[in-house]
């Protein structure tokens, strides 16, 4: 599936400069091991100064939801304490099957996994699997998310994850409904912008190459134009805009070229041909041509389409 590589790339970028959530997680657990009485936010901060508060909160929430940490208050300070591993198990009430299912779902990440695929991977009977999923769901370990790819398809993922754009559909979906009109408006506005640039070349005196170069725009420029228009309620990313620009390419109105510095340049182009003569004739676009013959109800002699066209 080729859904916008943007966000996942960003994740990678973060991972290379800072610690990934998994490492932070381990560090926190290790810290908690050393202090059986519990650790405070301050402790974590002094141990791991690089970790952003947001990220810290995320990791802690995850550990809390997994039941690995306990939260309690002492002298108005929040403390996190490691749970007894044995207790963890009973607290989760998980048996082996549940664990297996949990890991399968965990592996699927924020793209989620379809119930059928869980069944294949786990080799569990449907009824049993359904029970396990229900129980994990009520415990808020996992959640079911409706996917936009198919209306009746639900995917499962860990409770605290933000579903991937391929599941929610990103900016183009509102409650699983594709916002076709919104896309159409953006498609038109992007084209308007590029077409405007093409028109500007009429007064260009610097030769044909210079004139062509004026027509180029990067996706960021188009994005800026659209953002300034203020027609979008949701915040669009440059990647979102590139999706729209691609539809213009498929409309045959825009072309994309790779520039020297590796970014894509977009420009409005004229088609090579006027509409072909065939489709200007009634028989060129006739919906009943297959039934049209010399004799019978549909024939060129008494054809209404031609009569109307001649009128």
């Amino acid at each position, binding site marked *: 599936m080729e859904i916008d590589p943007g966000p996942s790339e960003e994740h990678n970028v973060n991972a290379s400069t800072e610690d990934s959530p998994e490492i932070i997680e381990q560090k926190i657990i290790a810290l908690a091991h050393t202090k059986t009485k519990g650790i405070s936010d301050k402790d974590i901060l002094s141990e791991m100064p690089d970790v952003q508060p947001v990220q810290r909160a995320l990791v802690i929430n995850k550990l809390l939801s997994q039941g690995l940490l306990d939260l309690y208050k002492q002298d108005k300070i929040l403390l996190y304490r490691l749970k007894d591993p044995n207790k963890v198990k009973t607290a989760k009430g998980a048996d082996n099957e549940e664990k297996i299912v949990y890991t399968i779902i965990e592996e699927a990440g924020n793209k989620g996994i379809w119930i059928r695929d869980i069944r294949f991977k786990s080799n569990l009977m449907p009824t049993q699997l359904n029970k396990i999923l229900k129980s994990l769901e009520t415990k808020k370990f996992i959640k079911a998310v409706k996917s936009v790819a198919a209306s009746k398809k639900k995917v499962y993922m860990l409770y605290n994850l933000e579903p991937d754009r391929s599941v929610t559909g990103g900016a183009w979906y509102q409650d699983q409904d594709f916002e076709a009109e919104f896309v159409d408006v953006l498609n038109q506005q992007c084209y308007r912008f590029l077409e405007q640039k093409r028109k500007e070349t009429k007064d260009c005196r610097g030769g044909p190459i210079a004139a062509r170069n004026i027509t180029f725009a990067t996706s960021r420029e188009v994005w800026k134009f659209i953002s300034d228009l203020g027609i979008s309620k949701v915040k669009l990313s440059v990647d979102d805009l590139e999706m729209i620009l691609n539809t213009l390419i498929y*409309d045959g109105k825009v072309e994309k070229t790779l520039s020297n510095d590796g970014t894509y340049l977009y420009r409005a182009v004229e*088609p090579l041909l006027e509409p072909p003569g*065939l489709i200007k*004739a009634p*028989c060129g*676009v006739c919906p009943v041509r297959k039934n*049209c013959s010399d004799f019978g109800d549909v024939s060129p002699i008494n054809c209404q389409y031609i009569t109307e066209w001649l009128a």
Partner: protein
Amino acid sequence: MSLFCEKLCSVLLLEHFGPIVQSVGDDLFKHGAKSLGFIRATTGLPLPKVKEALCVLLQYGFAIHRQTEKGIQYHFLPDKVITILRYPRYMFFAKKFCGDEAEMMLEEVLKRGYETASQIIIKTFHRLEQHRSEHQSSLSMLKDKFELLVKNQFLTRSICTETMDEGPAEKIECNVPDLNMQAMAQIMQGNTDDPGDNKIYWRVNLDRFEQDLRDQIMVSAITKRVDENAGELMRQLLFLMYLRTASWADTSNPIPYSEIKEAVRKINYPLLVQYLDQYLRLLEEDSSQFLKRVGDSGGGQFSINTKEAFSQLAWTTVENIVMERFGSKAARIFRLVRSRKYVEQEQIQQLAMIPAKEAKHLTYTLLQENYLQMQELKKAGASAAPTKTFFLFYIDLNQVVRMEIEHCYHALYNTIQRREQESASNKRMIDKQLRIQTLTSNLKEHGATEEQLAEIVEMMTPSEKLQLEKVQNTIKKLGGSELQIDETLFLLTMYLHYH
């Protein structure tokens, strides 16, 4: 061959040559090669009639004959019959390059299939006399025009001889024979004389016109895509291509930059001269890929890629047809499948950003109408899992083009049928008008008075006149439509020629 090609050829032959030639043509089309005796047997026509009809077919190049062990066999050439539709465009070309008189000469040859130079000139002279007495044209001027047509290769020597037993086509000389101008003047007076070109016949060089039409398409495509200057550059490049490459080659032999520069300097396009390098680069970088840089020596070597050009043009045409028949969203899907080669349904709706239901509907409509093809791909999953099946959509351009060519044949056939019907149902009035015209011109010659003439014109009632005008417009509009459909047909045929 296709059903509608057959029907189209049939109506064209009927319209221009009458029912006998039509039935012989039909018969040859159905059975492929055939001998004279068999044609007589299946058509049930008397032998002299069959011979006459075959003569016509051979004369116009709509059939050829071949000596086989079973005797002489006749082959039908449907593509050539269809060129009848293009005669008006050929005449337009002749007019553009060689002037009005040349257009008339070409028309004479087209009307007769083949003809001697002296006859062509004499006939044209007579016609000119009738039509435009104010414009004096002389025999020698017409002879020059004729030579110009030959020089431009619009006319070529006909190898069709009266005895029809010519051997393998040897290289024919294309020099205009020395015409005896005095003898021609004699003939014009109604005397018999020998103009000196007996049995040297000329025919229209269809190949040359097809090339012109092909080049014209490429030039106007570039003009539309870039600008006038680029279009002119394309034209010059095509001229240069002819100097070094067989006319129907896929790509031209390399054209050196220096020659392009030379050629451009001779024409009056100052901006093109100034920015020649830039224009060349534009063409080279354009996605239409008409021009390729094939070497860097001496400022660059360029090659025209006609094959690729017609592939791009055919795509554009087909995309346009899809757009017009099924709407812009369908065209978006079609182009998307084109650019992705093989693509799944789910990807289509995501990339095209069309709601799933609508995208599915459009995709399957295109599939059903044969614009898209579907391929099933089975992928074995894990042992326990059943095999997973993918459905990939793709486009077979050759097939789509063939389908659209058939579509053109059908549309042409229908349009011609309708045109014939319109004129048949108004025959009485059209005939009446013709009679009035002849009468008027006859009376004029005999010095009739204004009143007498006015009286004759009165023979048509105002309502008749109105009706007649309407019919004439209808026929004109349908005829124009035929020309337009043929443009599409020609472009698609060109594509198949190269692919």
